[in-house]
C-alpha cells in the first residue's frame, strides 16, 4: 500500500514543478486527500486540473487507490 508520502512524491514527479501535500484519510493506504499547487493548472478548468493529477496514477485511482480527493491551485 502506498503511503501519503509516496503519493505526494509521485504527483510531484509526474507534474514538474508541482508541490503536493497528501493526507491518508483512513490510514489504510487507499483513501487519500491531496492539495496540489502547480503552474501547470493555469488556464485549465477544474476538471482538467484534476484529470492532470489523476493521469499520474493511471488505472490505480479507482482501483487500488479507491479515492484521491483533490484540491488544485496555481499558487
Amino acid at each position, binding site marked *: 500500500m502506498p503511503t501519503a508520502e509516496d503519493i505526494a512524491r509521485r504527483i510531484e514527479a509526474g507534474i514538474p514543478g508541482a508541490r503536493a501535500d497528501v493526507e491518508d484519510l483512513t490510514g489504510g493506504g487507499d483513501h487519500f486527500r491531496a492539495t496540489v499547487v502547480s503552474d501547470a493548472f493555469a488556464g485549465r478548468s477544474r476538471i482538467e486540473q484534476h484529470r492532470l493529477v489523476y493521469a499520474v496514477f493511471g488505472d490505480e485511482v479507482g482501483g487500488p487507490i479507491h479515492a484521491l480527493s483533490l*484540491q488544485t491551485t496555481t499558487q
Partner: protein
Amino acid sequence: MSDETRSDETETNPVRDAIERAIGEHKVILFMKGTPEQPGCGFSARTAAALQALGSPFAAVDVLPDPRIRQELSALSNWPTIPQLFVDGELIGGCDIVTEMYETGELQRALGVQPPAGSPGSLDATGSAGVAGDGPLLGIESTPR
C-alpha cells in the same frame, strides 16, 4: 498495431449505449454508489446531498449492481472515480468539484436553480421520490420534474 483483443470502441456495447442515452436524456444525472436515499459511499452521499439541498430534480444511477457500468462510464468520461455528475451532457465533476461548487454557489448557477432560502451549509434536504428502476441495464431513479 493496435491491440485487437480490446473491443471497447466497437458499436455493440449496450452498457455504454445505455449510459450515453441516460446522460443525453437527463439534464442532471448523478452516477453514484447506492442511491440518494441509501448511498453506498461517503463521497456519493455528499454529492447527492448537495444536489438535494438545492432542491433541483436529478436522475441517479447506482453503479454497484453491474461493474460494467462503472467501467464504461469511466472510459466514456475520462474520469476514474465515482460519483460523477453530468449536467446537460457534460461532466461537471466528482465529489470534490461538486462540493466546492455547492459552497461557492456555482452549482446553483450550473443547474439553473434559485439559491436555497436557508443557510447554504445545510445538506439535509429530503430525498428524491419516484423510483423508476425498470431499465434493463441502468436503474435510473428520477426526482419529479
